[in-house]
């Protein structure tokens, strides 16, 4: 038998959130955690969580599994079970709508803020813009982000300042466009990130890298952005603080 302990909250009936433990027979096969949740939902249809692709590419089912953020659909229960127990919580730091469903408005607002689209004011050619394989390689490890929010919601800087610190997910995308040879707005993009909060609240504790279900490295992208900002500032002969205040 295994115990699955789930964070429960229904705003219509519950004054406070609580946790509920479901005890069930351990499945014979090593199924994914999402499948286990689907089994539980057949027993208790009131459990709420998001899911869509069930193969780790849509980013719907990010949740906190035994204290670590991850996607339920690609986490085998063999990895999730600790002492015959699995603890499931909503992604930390965002308001809870219900059970394992969080309000991602602030997360998406940061994404919108970095202008996550290619900007190039030159007239496009009749065919595609050319890009060498080497230039295209620079986008690998960046464009694959699925916006699951596992990284940003594991980041204390994002917890404290979700409205001001862009967070690892959106910074990864900021760098994805800075790194794109077809984008001509690098200077403007950097300028938009040069305040003390947007980038500089990252102190490189690597939680984002540790949890990313797609093995991406937002920390590296943030480092690149910081270097570019610093070399810009050096050119202007301005002394910058490290943003810690």
């Amino acid at each position, binding site marked *: 038998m295994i115990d699955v302990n789930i964070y429960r909250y229904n705003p219509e009936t519950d004054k406070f959130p609580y946790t509920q433990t479901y005890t069930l027979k351990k499945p014979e096969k090593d199924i994914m955690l999402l499948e286990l949740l689907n089994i539980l939902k057949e027993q208790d249809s009131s459990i709420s969580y998001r899911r869509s692709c*069930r193969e780790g590419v849509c980013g719907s089912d990010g949740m906190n599994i035994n204290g670590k953020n991850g996607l339920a659909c690609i986490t085998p229960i063999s990895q999730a079970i600790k002492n015959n127990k699995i603890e499931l919580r909503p992604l930390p730091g965002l308001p809870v709508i219900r059970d394992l469903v969080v309000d991602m408005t602030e997360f998406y607002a940061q994404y919108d803020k970095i202008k996550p689209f290619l900007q190039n004011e030159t007239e496009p050619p009749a065919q*595609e813009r050319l890009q060498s394989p080497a230039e295209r390689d620079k986008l690998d490890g960046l464009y694959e982000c699925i916006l699951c929010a596992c990284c940003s919601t594991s980041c204390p800087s994002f917890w404290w300042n979700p409205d001001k610190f862009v967070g690892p997910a959106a910074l990864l995308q900021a760098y994805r466009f800075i790194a794109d040879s077809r*984008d001509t707005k690098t200077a403007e993009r950097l300028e938009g990130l040069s305040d003390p909060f947007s980038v500089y609240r990252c102190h490189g504790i690597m939680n984002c890298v540790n949890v990313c279900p797609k093995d991406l490295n937002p920390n590296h992208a943030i480092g690149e952005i910081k270097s570019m900002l610093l070399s810009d500032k050096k050119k202007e002969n301005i002394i910058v603080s490290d943003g810690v205040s």
Partner: protein
Amino acid sequence: MENYNSSNIKTLEFDALIIGGGGSGMRTSLELAKSGLKTAVVSKVFPTRSHTVSAQGGITCAIASEDPNDDWRWHMYDTVKGSDYIGDQDAIEYMCSEGPKAVFELEHMGLPFSRFENGRIYQRPFGGQSKDFGKGGQAARTCAAADRTGHALLHTLYQNNIKEGSNFLNEWFAVDLVLNQSKEVTGVIAFSIESGEVAYLKSQATVMATGGAGRIYSSTTNALINTGDGLGMALRAGFPAQDMEMWQFHPTGIYGAGSLVTEGCRGEGGYLINAEGERFMERYAPNAKDLAGRDVVARSMVLEILEGRGCGENKDHVFLKLDHLGADVLNAKLPGICELSRTFAGVDPIFNPIPVVPTCHYMMGGTPTNIHGQAFTQSNGEDKIIAGLFSVGEAACVSVHGANRLGGNSLLDLVVFGRAAGIHIQEALKTGGGVADADSDDINKALHGLNKINSSSDGFEVAEVKRELQSVMQNYFGVFRRGDYMEKGVSALEEIREKVSNLHLKDKSMAFNTSRVEALELQNLFEVAEATAIASLQRTESRGAHARDDFKERDDENWLCHSLYDPIKKTLSKRDVNFTPIQVDTFEPKVRTY
């Protein structure tokens, strides 16, 4: 629970409403965002969670990158042949000739395509592709962003919708169409999943971009959200569906999990082997081998398994061999597949073959439309436009895929026809097109289904009924079909209808109640399944994906036509295929071999 009626729900008014935030819906909305019309995209999931994200191998289009002499007419020839000649040639011509423009637009929007050394978009070979009208050998026409093309395309479209300021109603679920007295579509009843609030979304143009319904089968590559909501709504409203017997079984779904393994694996040089290690496709398709049409490859695999040459303990799958391509090629060209295979098959394709089986993948049928996305019905054998209703993408049957879709043509379909519908709606609404208002009775009628499920005090369990439905479809309407089995399937479905009409919604809460969504989705699945079953039983021939043991041959004399399913009478009629392209001569039906 409160009973909803036209006076206790709010009305939100739009010029155009797009139901579905996948590739086709977001391409339509992008076109409309620039128009100044008041538009909203209604999506039951945040748009980047839509199933387009799972498309892997690419978008097929004659952009003449890999081969500077490539020609959209060759692509058209392949698509007509792939459709087993019931794809509409005017629509296929439009898709193939407009395609390059649509793909270059995506590139200009920022889609991170993989590249050739000369900096042009990378293209790989896919099944059913040829040069020079089948005479010039295998073509490489599928534009790719590694093996994550759908992800790259969907995110690019979402990003550009942000840029253009599109309006999204995210995590809103559309329940039913609202029809006025003249049976024009005036919008939908929908609710916010987050708050539970119900509204009448009123619109001059309602675009169904709701994708496929692969979840009618128990084994499918489709996301859990692919429940045919738009088609379900249209069928409940009495509008017909076309070619519903045509379901594509993708040759390579991961054994057990069902996750898709792109045809691009075979395009890059991978091949299928049976338990004897034999590359069996050489026997079934001596020329194209593993890159024959998907229907041909899927049937060959099932025959290998039925004849005892399947792999594994139960001899119930075959292997996709990739290790000979080497780690460098696999990591560069197929990184997503390596990841999926390790996660869901426990196999690293760099060293070992992936266990695969044919798995339900794509609905060729759907709401019949013209190339502008306008939905139609038939009256006295004549096509009749349904005012206010549009359909694009997998939900629609325009029909560019006919009886069998070619790999990579789905993503092209989304962007070409999403764009076309957007252009048409702008023009139509600016020149006074639109629909008359619905009255309160009309709105109340559309609320009936939601009220019924909300007031259920007992009845059948959603999860159980869904399993039952899926197993009937899997057992009786799979890769090979037989009249007597399908008759059993049809009568099993009659019993299931009773249950689907009497589902028990235990949890009546408002906020993020996913069990309400799942119950309504099941009702949509059922409508699609029933249309599929009746159409499959009545098409007495084998064509494309529809393979019957009791009618093994293609029957052009009687069935070189679309089937049109009438959901009210539950009958099937025939509709002419278009054989009159404008810029090229008709491609006449031929025996289809690879």
